[in-house]
């Protein structure tokens, strides 16, 4: 059986890649996907910790994260599409105004 | 024999049996469609009834030139048929063809089936996008629309037998139908079966819902740029998916391998029932006309989805008061 620490280490690496992705990329869609990557990394850690604790509570946490992620993606994409309709461009650098 | 080797052997057998079966299912559909239209269908290759037609088709497709459009997104375009085919084959992994005769009878079998078959959209989309063709892209967008809309009714309809049997494991679901097939289960069974067939039609992109490959508008949809073996892989995946869904329908509603006669007849009964479901779907396909995109979406979101949720809810109440098992 693979030790839980390996999973958590992998989760740390994936999380860091996600952080870099959010910072480096200018396309809000890719930033969004990087956020999904971070959420997934956290989920992986949850499940690994859950196995170490010997109960299913970690899996419940992941379940909720998935539900929230689904809601978040729907709202986030709607916002991105609305912004794109207004501005015709798709770079986060342009979104420096709170209103227009 | 060690369990791993046993599983590998089983997987090998099932894979090859399915591929052979799928080839002949295409022949079955062509013959069936031909009869419905007062034609004969394939005849000359392998007289008297075109028994060699699938083999000839496969050979022909293998020998054809493999054309890659210059403007295509090469990586995506080349990977798409494989990505499309793999989930379509993988759905057979949890289907038991008789008690203890299957690759892996997981305790989340139905869930696995639903999960894997929802992956099919990725390959479909890759094909539509990678071809860099406006018809293919339009088809991929329609496919995304349609599959999002019909995934949920499909899942809800498939969950009704799961609730009635009280298990996600396929063999347990069949065992629960020992006395009464779920299609004969009063009210819930029939409604769920109808919802299942309608959602299946949409999930397989068959005619009343085939907007994504509507020949008269989109040439051939997302696979318009594919030729040769890649085209063959896509066709194979499509028919494997159809047959797999028919197997699922036969297992969930028609009692799987249950039937009269000795136990070894079980797989044959199962195959017969699956082919029946397949022919039911094909029958609808060759009887109706294509409906519009907005109508398809309206049917799903305004009728099928609320109805299947209500049905699932009612079944849950019924099972809660009566206890699981028929």
């Amino acid at each position, binding site marked *: 059986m693979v030790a839980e620490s390996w999973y958590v280490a992998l989760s740390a690496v994936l999380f860091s890649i996600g952080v870099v992705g959010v910072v480096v990329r200018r396309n809000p869609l890719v930033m969004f996907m990087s956020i999904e990557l971070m959420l997934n990394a956290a989920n992986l850690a949850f499940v690994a910790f859950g196995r170490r604790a010997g109960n299913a509570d970690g899996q*419940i946490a992941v379940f909720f994260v998935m539900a929230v992620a689904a809601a978040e993606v729907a709202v986030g994409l709607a916002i991105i599409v609305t912004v794109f309709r207004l501005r015709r461009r798709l770079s986060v650098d342009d979104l420096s105004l709170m209103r227009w | 024999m060690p369990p791993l080797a046993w599983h590998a052997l089983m997987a090998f057998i099932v894979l090859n049996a399915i591929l052979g079966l799928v080839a002949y299912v295409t022949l079955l559909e062509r013959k069936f469609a031909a009869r419905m239209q007062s034609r004969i269908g394939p005849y000359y290759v392998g007289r008297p009834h075109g028994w060699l037609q699938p083999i000839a088709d496969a050979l022909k497709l293998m020998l054809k030139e493999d054309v890659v459009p210059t403007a295509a997104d090469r990586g995506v375009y080349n990977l798409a048929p494989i990505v499309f085919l793999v989930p379509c084959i993988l759905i057979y992994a949890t289907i038991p063809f008789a008690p203890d005769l299957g690759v892996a009878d997981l305790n989340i079998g139905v869930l696995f089936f639903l999960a894997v078959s929802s992956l099919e959209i990725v390959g479909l989309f890759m094909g539509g996008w990678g071809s860099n063709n406006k018809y293919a892209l339009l088809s991929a*967008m329609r496919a995304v629309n349609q599959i999002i809309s019909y995934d949920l009714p499909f899942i809800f309809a498939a969950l009704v037998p799961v609730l009635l049997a009280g298990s996600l494991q396929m063999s347990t679901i069949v065992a629960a139908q020992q006395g009464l097939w779920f299609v004969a289960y009063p009210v819930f069974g029939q409604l769920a079966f109808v919802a299942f067939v309608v959602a299946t039609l949409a999930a397989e992109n068959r005619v009343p819902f085939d907007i994504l490959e509507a020949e008269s508008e989109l040439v051939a949809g997302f696979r318009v740029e594919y030729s040769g073996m890649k085209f063959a892989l896509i066709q194979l995946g499509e028919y494997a998916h159809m047959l797999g869904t028919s197997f699922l329908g036969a297992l969930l509603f028609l009692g799987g391998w249950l039937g009269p006669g000795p136990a070894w007849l079980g797989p044959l009964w199962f195959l017969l029932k699956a082919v029946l479901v397949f022919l039911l779907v094909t029958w609808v396909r060759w009887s109706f006309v294509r409906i519009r995109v907005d109508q398809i979406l309206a049917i799903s979101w305004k009728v099928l989805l609320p109805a299947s949720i209500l049905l699932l809810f009612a079944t849950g109440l019924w099972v809660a008061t009566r206890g699981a098992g028929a």
Partner: protein
Amino acid sequence: MTHAAFLVIAALAVASALGLVLRRNAIHGALFLVVNLGSVAALYLTLGAEFLAAVQVIVYAGAIMVLFVFAIMVLIPGKEETGLDPRRGWRLLALPVGALLALQLLLVVRAGVGPVAPAAAVPGGVEAVARLLFTRYLLPFELTSVLLLAAMVGVLLLARRRV
């Protein structure tokens, strides 16, 4: 055997994550994310969380990715990240910082590994999860449905607005 499987899947996960971050093309990024989500689902399987693996594939690969792909197609990608990046220096700074973060997290993982008694068999099946979900976590579960409803209404409102 299990170690080899873990290493292969982990390598796939890391490679696809890097692909998502490094490739210009948003569609390629989305496809890499699908690979990543799939490999994480496989890792859930190796951890004995079968239910989560299936839900991961249905929810992420089946629903969330489809939404992403649809948004990308609607927004006509490929034109947004061309041209010189005005803040290139700052963005490149993210790489060492990210590496540092990874290092830090890994050190935390390493420090946190203590001699823990091997856990009992994890109740990973659907039944265990469902039992917890409908007893101890019933209130959060119901709240999630409210959250999803709120998200749905919000999205409809955003999508409806014509400017």
